[in-house]
């Protein structure tokens, strides 16, 4: 398995972030895992990375329901960044709203990044499967 340099988690729920961190670090090899409380903070950070030619994370775990800037708003802005590398974005949600499913299909077709839609809970096998360089 190819080693992953950077993984980012965007979620406002501390327990989910903790769980994901634990699952990822025990399942795959990676150099660093960063996490952000909502889409706005994450976007600001990633934009700053891009502008300063810093490493953009190869895998992003993205929650949908977050205050200030939710997952969809983050995606909308993120795919506008002229990043040539193909980034893997794993949406992780407990939403069963068909609207979210539609949104996912919309962004998936719109972007060259690999975007997946995952229902909670996420187990170890799932983590291994979706934590790979796109």
């Amino acid at each position, binding site marked *: 398995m190819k080693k992953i340099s950077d993984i980012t988690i965007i979620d406002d729920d501390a*327990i*989910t972030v903790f769980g994901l961190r634990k699952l990822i670090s025990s399942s795959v090899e990676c150099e660093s895992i960063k996490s952000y409380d909502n889409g706005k903070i994450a976007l600001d950070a990633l934009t700053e990375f891009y502008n300063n030619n810093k490493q953009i994370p190869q895998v992003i775990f993205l929650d949908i*329901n977050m205050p*200030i800037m939710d997952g969809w708003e983050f995606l909308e802005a993120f795919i506008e960044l002229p990043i040539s590398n193909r980034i893997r974005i794993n949406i992780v949600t407990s*939403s*069963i*709203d068909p609207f979210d499913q539609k949104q996912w299909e919309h962004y998936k077709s719109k972007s060259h990044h690999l975007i997946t839609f995952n229902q909670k809970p996420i187990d170890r096998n799932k983590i291994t499967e979706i934590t790979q360089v796109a």
Partner: protein
Amino acid sequence: MIRSKNSSSFSLDWIKQIPSSIVIIDTDFKLISASPRWEANFQLNLEQIEGKYFVDLFPELAQELKTRLKYSLDGLRDIKFKYNANECQYSSDDSIWHLNPWKDGYGNIIGVIIKIEPITKTQELELELNKTKLLLNNKTSVAKIGSFELDAINNSLLWTPIVNKIYGLPVDFHPTLETAIDFYTDESKEVIQKVVNEALTLGKPWNVKAQLRQKDGTIIWVNTIGRPKFKDGICTRIIGTIQQVDEENKIEVKKTVLEAELSEYPLFEKVPLGLAIIDFDNGNFLNVNQQFIKLSGFEKEHFINKNFKEFIGKSFLNKEKDLVTQLKEKESFDSVKFTFSNKLNHTLNLKVSGNLVKGLNNKKSILCTIENITTQTKLEKKLKNTIIASREKNDQLLNFAHMVSHNLKTHATNFSLLLNFLNDEKGLTQRNKYMTMLFNASDNLSETIKGLREIVAVKSNLNNEKKLLPLNESVFIVEQNVAGLLKQTNGKIVNEIPDDVKVKALPAYLNSILTNCITNSIKYKCDNKPPIIILSTEENKDYTILSIEDNGLGIDLEKYGDQLFGLYKTFHRNKESRGIGLYITKNQMDAMNGKITVDSSPGQGTTFKFYFNKK
């Protein structure tokens, strides 16, 4: 130059000059002359018909025409006769023929002058009316009219072949007065003898109804009329008619337009649906039925012979052209709705559809059905509103269900995640860490459920009655509740609400709304300045409007405007944000038939306006 072939020697040139339509006939019913207008009217060439037997030109009318011409020759003035274009071949226009005796310079009748006048509506109705009266009186119809002439001096009787028919006798039978009277039944015989005697001796004309036994023994009713003619004090002759009057209407008789229409729709009056017959040519009501009368509250006379346009709203008039087009194209029009004010000045919603019908005279009229759909329209409107409301509710519920399931599922997955970790972990320090997180997760779950309970409470309180509440009383209570918070932040509430302002609201909702909004103003204050909250009210026709203005963080409405009142939407990085407050506030205002508006921009503070419905 046309010359009379009659013995009269005076010139008939004048007839060529007159503009009206006139034809002249001699005593033998031969056509003598006609005016150019008459020629044109009937598209006949005078030179070809001059001297011809006039009645032959109008075979369809022969019988009626002959009788009337005879009366005219007897000196009867101004006999009116309706010429029905449909039944005859020459003219396409209905007209009235005025028959008058034509006299020479000595007062001798030498023929008949027939003047043809275009028919006017009134005349037509008059004629029809007279006819109807006659028909109603007799309750029978005219079958056959025969005429006779009794030469009183020579005691000889002549009659037309129709009389032979009435008597059931062969055409070549020649009657005498005695044989003629013999055919009457015993009772009638006395009557007839009496009237004939009175006519001969006293000059009294008769008009009697009598029973006649036909040759084959069949007994029929006849109506006989006789007019004695006197010369030098002696009765010289009696002319008259004999008509078979038949109880069973064997022969079709023209009736009034109205009656014709009625007989075509025998159930007209009885149909439990408004019906109206409208003249296609001029738009006048010809008849309306009982149900229509009931519907409108007016009498029948209110409509008859008046134009339909007098009774309907202007909006309908625009459709008139379309309706006429439809009638011409497919002889009916699709149902249209319009409003009508009845006698009690109630506005009714009516649905009208119409069919083009042709009466006996080939007269076009529109048969309309009028349905009162006021109740249906009202119910339909109500139903539509209910559907919209339930659809909204349904959407809300679905949204709510998604939200709830999402939130509860988040907690559930967190529990299972942490419990799994706990299960795998042996180290005490790490296990304690998981335990702490589990307690947090449990608190979060309780908090979420508490929020859901508040939301459900709003939805289940809908049936409570609103009360008129002094606004300031509620404000004071809330001010006390937030006093601690206010003190912490050095905040200030400026209350500009007059003490007499009252709003119609549910007490629990009003407190909740005020608390929510004022706490928000304090919670989302600017970091560098203490919060100032200004309360004021204004009034309009329907609402008492409460404004709550603050100098806080403000909200970017362009970005979040549509989500502001959504569930679990938070816009500021604040640990206490739950995303429930404004959602509940909005629901509470909705439940009280009020509304809520917001005006804000980031860093500039926020103004919420609460519209409390006065009803």
